[in-house]
């Protein structure tokens, strides 16, 4: 049985609720209110993991977010959580965790061989070796290194948990519920401000929970409880625990992750595991407190060495002793608080104070309690591998350079306090250029860049009295600007015993002849000697030091190591710390689950899906869909065992022979109205638009200003001042913005309104020689003859009771019509067309057949209009007006665009009339030329010509105009194909365009 380190009483845990949990396969017990860390410590478990590089034994160093060691792998809710900080994970019934980065187990880890070889692995050793022979790095060395690195293992199973988002706005966001957070929140809330108060931990109160102070006539803890309960009762206040404000972004937007269910064994079905809050705050109060700094000495990474504040927290909150023979090693009064707590429960600590003769109330109290205090004493080195067993201690000279009176004393933990580092991350993220505060040896926020105020110990204020006073005042002041109220709050009197002075000592010198590793970054095994080596080698900027040694790059992001690293660099470089400067703080303050950042837009919903009103008809009729942007379009309608090729050939052939119908709802439609519409179109399109009669459609091409084709489509003049524009599916949103850009910014004098009407209309293209027959039966009252409704004509009709717009336009090159009805009636129209068309052998056709039809007609589409081609390249130069100006015209005179051998679209037919040319092949003169083989151009689109029953492709090739008739090669090395081909006209079928006019 493991020894019990739980006290019989005390702490804030619920002793009525015993909880069982498993660690490394072994069952333990804790209480409700424990963290995994406190519960393990209560069971005497100090060894939880192994360090990153040397695989040295690692225990617990802190009690919260600053923990650099205790990372475990967890199974929760039947899911794997790879890297969980044991100091943050609350205990629940059945919790199951294990150590990471060790093999075969944490007690016996093969990787620890690195530790014995550590002299060969100084900082950056990998840059100096593993270079020869050259393939060995990737094949031999790197795989070994990769295996040794990393912590937990990810499961490749899909994450079943829900993560939600919430966007919230408030007057004041207050991060942290220690004394400064509570006081400022209280003052602001009393002034009527809308306040969000966020606490990272499960319990509110911060340092008040563990300090022996009095506020008014209450203990710190009682005071905190009272303020919190009052705030919770106020309608203008949101109080959140388990919520970490981790990022301060532009325009006072902060992001907070709320761990909604992580502390529970299971997530309720409709409850998120975590919720990410995007909070836009008028004012931000950063009351994030401070983190205790380690003191650096030999083997200071051994399990059992920990922050003195953490030891106190385990005692006071969890009723757990981190050791029964503690050494407190301190350079300031904080260590005494811990010592006194030990003493109070009957454990005798030894205090080693680096100071010679400090004086304060708390030291007086410690002396009165008969605590053994050794002034001018330091821990030289911890002894013990998997757990501290003793400590070499020594007296240190006044100049802190010489050690004497060496002795070894037994102990089972060493609690260190090297004073406090303000948590300035959020302030720094907001753009605040921080400043170095000499008397606390740390950086504090300086001038605010955004609307942020840092209070309390985060601002380098370490006395409770001043913290409360300034925080109440700031809370009032900040809220007053917003609510115009000024509710005076009387500031309570405070009793606090410790002074806020410290000794500027942080690192114990090496005793002569000893070569202890003295660690700065505990997770990444960065020792004093590593930093010294980096500096010796010329890596002198703090960023170089960080990158070369990996100092501060562990999962704790240097919370306990950065400042000591800076001290060391400044010492060696003989600079003051502010000159060295700190590395930049970036969000997140602490690692955030990626699922929480993403939220609910996962799986099928990672992007929206757009559907046409006929979608479910297609689905019922065996359509196989294809993504067109975020639209779903039928690609083909599967009959029997057909594959894509067979089905699309059947569908296309049926259009050429009979009639087909295609859902064209997805085409962009823009309703253009206004007296200047014609003039506007004339500027937007490359061809002339002023004389288009009412009731007629015209094909148009629009360019970007750089002369590249942006989009094409037909536009119909519905009435004098009303046009109906169509765009490609892909470009629809861009074209609308483009039009609005010119109307609002460039030509504001034009009276034109544009609005998307894509969704108002369901569209069906009816194409094929028998399409007129179908149309006539759909609209028996209309004259749809070639005279009554000529090519590019338009009319309105009544389709069995619903209004319809009929356009005689064609993409397939056949006689064709496009019928639009209002979307609610789309399915009705479709079913009518299918029903009526039955006698003409109508079949629906999908995008694949559509593509075949347009390719063999030589109609260019997206694969030719690929954002790199001008009208000439697409044989659209006939549509480019020489007379008038239009968007992009000026660019068309560029040298490259008028070169005589400019690329142009052509048709390509394999000589054997059998072998399909894969799209993305290249046309070359010499298939056997040595590489790089010069390319004439690429095959942009391929199909099986249903007209001629052989393969046909479009290609855009250099000097295309003069290449027709040439015999060349199409090459697709990817598919190992070289196909002899002939270049032909791109208009393969019906080159004169007679069918569309028939």
């Amino acid at each position: 049985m493991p020894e019990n380190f739980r006290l019989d009483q005390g702490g804030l845990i619920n002793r009525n609720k015993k909880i069982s949990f498993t660690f490394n396969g072994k069952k333990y017990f804790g209480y409700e209110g424990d963290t995994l860390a406190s519960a393990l410590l209560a069971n005497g478990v100090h060894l939880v993991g192994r360090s990153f590089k040397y695989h040295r034994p690692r225990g617990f160093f802190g009690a919260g977010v600053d923990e650099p060691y205790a990372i475990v792998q967890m199974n929760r809710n039947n899911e794997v959580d790879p890297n969980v900080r044991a100091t943050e994970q609350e205990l629940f019934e059945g919790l199951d965790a294990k150590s990471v980065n060790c093999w075969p187990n944490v007690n016996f880890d093969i990787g620890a061989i690195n530790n014995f070889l550590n002299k060969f692995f100084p900082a950056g050793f990998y840059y100096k070796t593993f270079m020869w022979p050259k393939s060995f790095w990737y094949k031999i060395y790197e795989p070994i290194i990769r295996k040794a690195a990393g912590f937990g293992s990810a499961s490749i199973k899909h994450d079943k948990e829900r993560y939600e988002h919430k966007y919230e706005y408030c007057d004041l966001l207050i991060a942290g519920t220690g004394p400064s957070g509570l006081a400022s929140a209280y003052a602001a809330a009393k002034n009527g401000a809308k306040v969000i108060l966020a606490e990272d931990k499960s319990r509110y109160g911060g340092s008040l929970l563990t300090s022996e102070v009095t506020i008014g006539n209450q203990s710190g803890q009682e005071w905190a409880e009272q303020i919190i309960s009052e705030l919770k009762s106020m309608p203008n206040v949101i109080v959140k625990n388990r919520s970490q404000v981790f990022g301060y972004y532009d325009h006072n937007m902060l992001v907070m992750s709320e761990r909604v269910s992580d502390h529970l064994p299971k997530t309720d079905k409709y409850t998120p595991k975590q919720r990410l809050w995007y909070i836009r705050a008028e004012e931000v109060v950063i009351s994030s407190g401070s983190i205790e700094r380690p003191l650096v000495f030999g083997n200071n990474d051994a399990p059992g060495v920990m922050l003195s504040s953490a030891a106190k927290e385990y005692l006071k909150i969890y009723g757990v002793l981190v050791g029964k023979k503690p050494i407190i090693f301190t350079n300031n009064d904080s260590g005494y608080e811990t010592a006194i707590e030990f003493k109070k429960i009957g454990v005798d600590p030894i205090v080693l104070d680096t100071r010679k003769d400090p004086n304060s109330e708390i030291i007086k109290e410690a002396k009165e309690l008969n605590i053994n205090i050794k002034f001018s004493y330091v821990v030289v080195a911890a002894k013990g591998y998997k757990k501290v067993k003793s400590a070499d201690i020594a007296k240190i000279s006044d100049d802190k350079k010489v050690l004497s009176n060496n002795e070894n004393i037994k102990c089972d933990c060493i609690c260190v306090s090297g004073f406090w580092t303000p948590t300035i991350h959020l302030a720094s993220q907001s753009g605040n250029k921080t400043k170095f505060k000499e008397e606390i040896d740390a950086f504090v926020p300086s001038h605010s860049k955004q609307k942020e105020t840092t209070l309390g110990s985060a601002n380098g204020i370490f006395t409770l009295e001043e913290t409360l006073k300034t925080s109440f005042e700031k809370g009032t002041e900040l809220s007053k600007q917003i609510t115009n109220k000024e509710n005076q709050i009387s500031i309570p009197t405070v009793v606090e015993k410790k002074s806020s002075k410290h000794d500027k000592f942080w690192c114990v010198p090496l005793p002569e002849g000893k070569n202890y590793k003295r660690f700065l970054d505990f997770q990444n095994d960065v020792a004093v000697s590593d930093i010294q080596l980096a500096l010796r080698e010329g890596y002198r900027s703090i960023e170089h030091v960080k990158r070369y040694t990996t100092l501060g790059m562990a999962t704790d992001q240097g919370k306990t190591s950065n400042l000591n690293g800076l001290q060391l660099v400044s010492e060696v470089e003989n600079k003051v710390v502010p000159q060295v400067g700190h590395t930049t703080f970036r969000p997140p303050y602490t690692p955030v689950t990626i699922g929480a950042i993403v939220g609910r837009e996962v799986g099928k919903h990672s992007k929206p899906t757009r559907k046409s009103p006929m979608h479910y008809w297609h689905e019922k009729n065996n359509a196989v869909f294809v993504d067109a942007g975020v639209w779903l379009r039928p690609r083909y309608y599967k009959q029997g065992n057909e594959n894509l090729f067979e089905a699309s050939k059947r569908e296309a052939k049926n259009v050429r022979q009979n009639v087909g119908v295609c859902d064209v709802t997805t085409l962009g439609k823009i309703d253009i109205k206004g007296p200047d519409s014609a003039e506007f179109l004339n500027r937007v399109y490359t061809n002339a638009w002023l004389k288009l009669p009412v009731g007629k459609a015209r094909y148009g091409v629009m360019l970007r200003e750089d002369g590249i084709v942006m989009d094409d489509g037909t536009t119909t003049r519905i009435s004098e001042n009303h046009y109906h524009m169509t765009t490609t599916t892909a470009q629809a949103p861009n074209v609308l913005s483009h039009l609005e850009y010119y109307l609002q910014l460039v030509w504001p004098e034009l009276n034109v309104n544009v609005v998307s009407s894509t969704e108002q209309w369901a569209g069906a293209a009816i194409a094929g020689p028998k399409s007129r027959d179908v149309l006539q039966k759909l609209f028996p009252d209309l004259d749809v003859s070639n005279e009554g409704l000529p090519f590019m004509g338009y009319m309105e009709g009544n389709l069995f009771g619903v209004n319809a717009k009929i356009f005689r336009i064609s993409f397939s090159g056949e006689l064709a019509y496009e019928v639009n009805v209002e979307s609610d009636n789309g399915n009705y129209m479709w079913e009518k067309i299918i029903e009526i068309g039955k006698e003409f052998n109508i079949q629906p056709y999908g995008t694949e057949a559509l593509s075949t039809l347009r390719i063999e007609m030589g109609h260019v589409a997206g694969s030719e209009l690929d954002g790199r081609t001008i009208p000439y390249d697409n044989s659209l130069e006939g549509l480019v007006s020489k007379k008038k100006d239009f968007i992009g015209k000026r660019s068309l005179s560029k040298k490259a665009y008028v070169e005589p051998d400019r690329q142009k679209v052509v048709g390509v037919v394999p000589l054997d009339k059998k072998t399909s040319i894969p799209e993305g092949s290249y046309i070359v003169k010499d298939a056997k030329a040595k590489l790089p083989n010069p390319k004439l151009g690429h095959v942009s689109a391929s199909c099986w010509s249903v007209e001629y029953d052989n393969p046909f492709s479009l290609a855009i090739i250099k000097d295309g105009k003069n290449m027709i008739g040439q015999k060349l090669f199409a090459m697709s090395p990817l598919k190992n194909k070289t196909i002899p081909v002939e270049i032909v006209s791109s208009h393969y079928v019906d080159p004169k365009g007679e069918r569309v006019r028939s």
Partner: protein
Amino acid sequence: MLYILCPHCGLRPQTEFSYGGDATVKRPELNKEISDQDWDNFVYLRKSPRGKHLELWQHISGCRQWIKVERDTLTHEIFTTYKASENT
């Protein structure tokens, strides 16, 4: 997420807007003779200053108006926003 003052709608989150680039380039007038250099200046050349930058945004999921925004490219602070019709 930037918080952009739409001169028509008020302060709105960035997700409602789409970016439109440098607002200082001026399209040459239609039908006007213009040198190659001046045309290239309009199409391709950008000052892209570090500091104050006058730029276009379209309130695409709001009022669909193009607006001009004066913003610091280093701090992202927004100073003033203008309607398309307003002179800056």
